[in-house]
């Protein structure tokens, strides 16, 4: 499998990347989803803008009560970060579930979120953690709450000339969290990925990857749980996916099982 001819540009700063993207082009970060789809010619951008070597996109730090992860951080860097393990173990655990070491060493959180594969692990994690996706484009910087970020199958609120620069996550004292994943056996993407953050006061946020064509916060389940009721069925009103590995019915069943397991883990 060989790609078609395309132009390649490498940006050395966010500003340069944005100006290159504005000229037409697709951002290349780790390339673990983009390059294979180009080899299969399912995705055929004319120009790739490599954002993989922009220093500003790297780094993980605290800013007040927020953990700030550079959009170019690899899954491996997040999984191995002492700071993430300490402040937001949900992200360290979740990142460790992604792919295999080769994938984790190349793939980035920003790239994964921008690609918005409904079965990827990051969507459930950022949704449950109430993260904010910070993006920069020709019109400057804006912050998109994770809950507004995923707009459909492989679609996001990101404009073509925008780059994910940071993921900012509130660190909640006394909270508990978990990510429970039932992996599709071949791809190891999530058939069901259930992320829960339970705050010190017992309020939970519950998000799913892999279940519907768009990753989602299950507000019905949250509402029930936060008013002391049983969670009720997962995925009401969602477009539940069906494929060779899980029919719609089985997927919903799995989602309910994994919700239970996640709730037990944060009990």
């Amino acid at each position, binding site marked *: 499998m*060989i790609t078609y*001819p395309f132009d390649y540009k490498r940006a050395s700063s966010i500003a340069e990347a944005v100006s290159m993207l504005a000229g037409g082009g697709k951002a290349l970060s780790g390339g673990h989803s983009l390059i294979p789809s180009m080899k299969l010619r399912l995705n055929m951008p004319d120009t790739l803008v490599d954002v993989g070597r922009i220093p500003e996109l790297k780094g993980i730090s605290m800013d007040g009560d927020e953990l700030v992860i550079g959009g170019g951080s690899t899954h491996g860097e997040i999984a191995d970060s002492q700071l993430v393990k300490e402040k937001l173990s949900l992200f360290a655990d979740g990142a460790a579930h992604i792919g295999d070491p080769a994938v984790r060493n190349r793939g980035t959180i920003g790239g994964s979120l921008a690609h918005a594969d409904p079965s990827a692990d990051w969507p459930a994690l950022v949704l449950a953690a109430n993260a904010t996706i910070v993006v920069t484009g020709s019109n400057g910087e804006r912050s998109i709450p994770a809950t507004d970020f995923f707009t459909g199958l492989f679609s996001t609120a990101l404009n073509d000339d925008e780059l994910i620069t940071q993921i900012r996550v509130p660190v909640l004292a006394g909270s508990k969290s978990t990510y429970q994943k039932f992996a599709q056996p*071949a791809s190891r993407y999530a058939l069901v990925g259930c992320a829960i953050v339970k705050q010190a006061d017992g309020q939970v946020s519950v998000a799913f990857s892999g279940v519907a064509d768009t990753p989602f916060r299950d507000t019905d389940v949250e509402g029930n749980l936060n008013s002391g009721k049983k969670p009720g069925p997962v995925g009401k009103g969602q477009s539940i996916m069906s494929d*060779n590995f899980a*029919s719609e019915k089985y997927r919903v069943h799995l989602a309910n*099982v994994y919700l239970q397991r996640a709730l037990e883990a944060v009990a």
Partner: protein
Amino acid sequence: MSNKYIGQSIKRVEDKRFITGKGRYTDDIILPGMLHAHFVRSPYAHARLVRIDLDEAKAMPGVIAIYTGNDVADVNGVPCGWQVNFRSGEAMREPKHPMLIPTGSTAKHVGDAVAVVIAETKDIAIDAAELVMVEWEELPAVAAPADALSSDAPKVHEQFPDNKAFDWTFGNPIEEVDAAMAKAAHITELEFVNQRVVPNAMEPRAYIGSYDETYDKYTLYTSTQNPHLIRLLMCAFVLGIPEHKVRVVGPDVGGGFGSKIFHYTEEALVTWSSKQLGQPIKWTSDRSEAFLTDAHGRDHATKAEMGFDAEGNIVGLRIKTVANMGAYLSTFAPAVPTYLHGTLLQGLYTTPKINIDMTCVFTHTVAVDAYRGAGRPEATYLLERLMDLAALEMGRDPAELRFQNFIPPFDGVEQPGYQTQVALQYDSGNYEAVLKRGLEMLGYDDFRTEQTKAAKNNKILGVGFSTYVEACGIAPSAVVGSLGARAGLFESAQVRVQPTGKVSVFTGSHSHGQGHETTFVQVVADKLGIPMEDVDLVHGDSDALAFGMGTYGSRSLAVGGSAIVKSIEKILEKGAKIAAHKLECAEGDMEYAEGKWTVKGTDKSISFGDVALTAYVPHVYPPGLEPGLDFSSFYDPANFTYPFGCHIAVVEVDKETGKVTLKRMIAVDDVGNVINPMIVDGQIHGGLAQGIGQALFEGTIYDENAQLTNGSYMDYCMPRADDLPMFETDRQVTPCPHNPLGVKGAGEAGAIGSTPAVVNAVIDALWSAGHKPKDILMPLTSERVWQAMK
């Protein structure tokens, strides 16, 4: 003779180049002026080629030629190498696979090629192929074997409206089996599918055709398991070029599992095109093409019944199977469901009456042919699923039921071989012993206690058994000839002692992961009593050796190794004459050991190296004896070899999700004598992974248009290390009585025994939890197991 190497786990000498990335595979070979080919393939499983427009593609810079079906109309299609006729006597229907589909004709599976683009680079060839405009008329298609037989099924070949390639029956007459079954106290009946799997060798197929006008000679580099066989098929049946003008080289080959035995259209096309253009042409399959165009394995739909008397003795076995051949008959395809499957239905049991009724059908899918085990895994799956299910149904212990029905031990020397109801005569076997050992390793009594205890903790555990026998060391030529093979299945070897006493061994066997460069050299070094470093193995080049039949059917050591031993015997016989002459004594007084000939009862001796030098510098030499020390041999086995064993799986099933976790995999195999235990263990491990893969993970999924919907590793699940437990293996040795090394073959055993053990374990787990499914479709995905528990 010495005993320095045989039986030792010598590290594989070939691994240095493989592990350091220095193996030389076909795709690594770059010839001067080499061009690159890319195929335009049918996106439909069944479609008429209405029109093909090459203008735009031909105009692309760097494109050298584009050939279509009309250009290669004079080239014969790829033939089949085995003929099995209808029971009515009607000849097997044998539509040849055209090189490229001509205009007006129909593509018969997704991936069937319609044009080949040849360009200066692979990139250009791929880009130009996108510009080839093909107008198709899509037609209805059928993928599943049982569906192909329905009266309104789409026809694969217009001239064969019933979609049958042939039908076949084997064993005892059906009336006798019916009569036996009528008296049975219990009949266990099972309908199941042995699903289609994709071989997935790590190295995809790759070929370079190179025609040299100066010498009027062709060279084909090919990722094959049998270079000579490819040469024979391609020269004599496809291209019609003289065999002595063709050299076929199989360099390092990264796995085959059967899929690289067969002759493929792409091999002949790069060779033919090279002659047209006068330049070498390379084609390397990509993984997506491999899913669509490599011959697949298995694909049987079966109804099987096993009858028992009131005491639990098997009284009869009655089987009806439909086997999928795909769209065309691949090289060995007809043999797989018949003579490599029907002949194994005796299993390890004394079943007195057996009949199989087999229908082999065409479908709009790529060809199905031999895949690791080839027919024997299907037979083992059938028998062993029936045995465990029968035990559950009759409330018997599955191990006890087997002990009761086993053929008693026979060594093939003191006791004769065992004559089955299905033609074969087993060479030697001791079936009780492998099951006993397996039960010991399992800790059977403890397991049942643990199973009960686990159930109280809401966990479902299960154990599954499989005891198998297979036919390897393929095969006695006269026997297979009488069964329809169009080739002999001997092997040849040449042992050339160089003047310095170093030894080059040429074998027709082909190593593509089996470790021949180590195992064969261990044998030669010990037989000659010289260091392994003094012996080199040459394989995979049709110019280097007179003939060779290649590697498949766990035959290399049993057949190829035996040919080498024959040559060594000739070397030692001639060497003794030279030694006796040099030592001035009678030939009969010579004895050979530890690399030298000694006059019996004296300390007078001459080394192997001195004799070798004398053979090439024959100044003081036996009168009338030819110089040189170099012998070729052909070895045609007297019988198949019959390895056997016991595989036991322990699984845990997640009650809520249906997910199966394989907790233990025990394998006790008897593959006869063992030359290199580590390599045999490696073969068993790899086979187990593939067999478990079929049980739990692998399998093609076709949609209603016969499109493969899981043709990538994102969707087709190969077993990975973290899916598997640490394997617990042990061995028993019952030597083969009819070949000089006493070896039986180990390449396929793991894949043959393990699949039913794993499925049986899941069924056992579910029965222990009160669910009583007779079958769950393979692969046992979590959803299917969950369904079975609902």
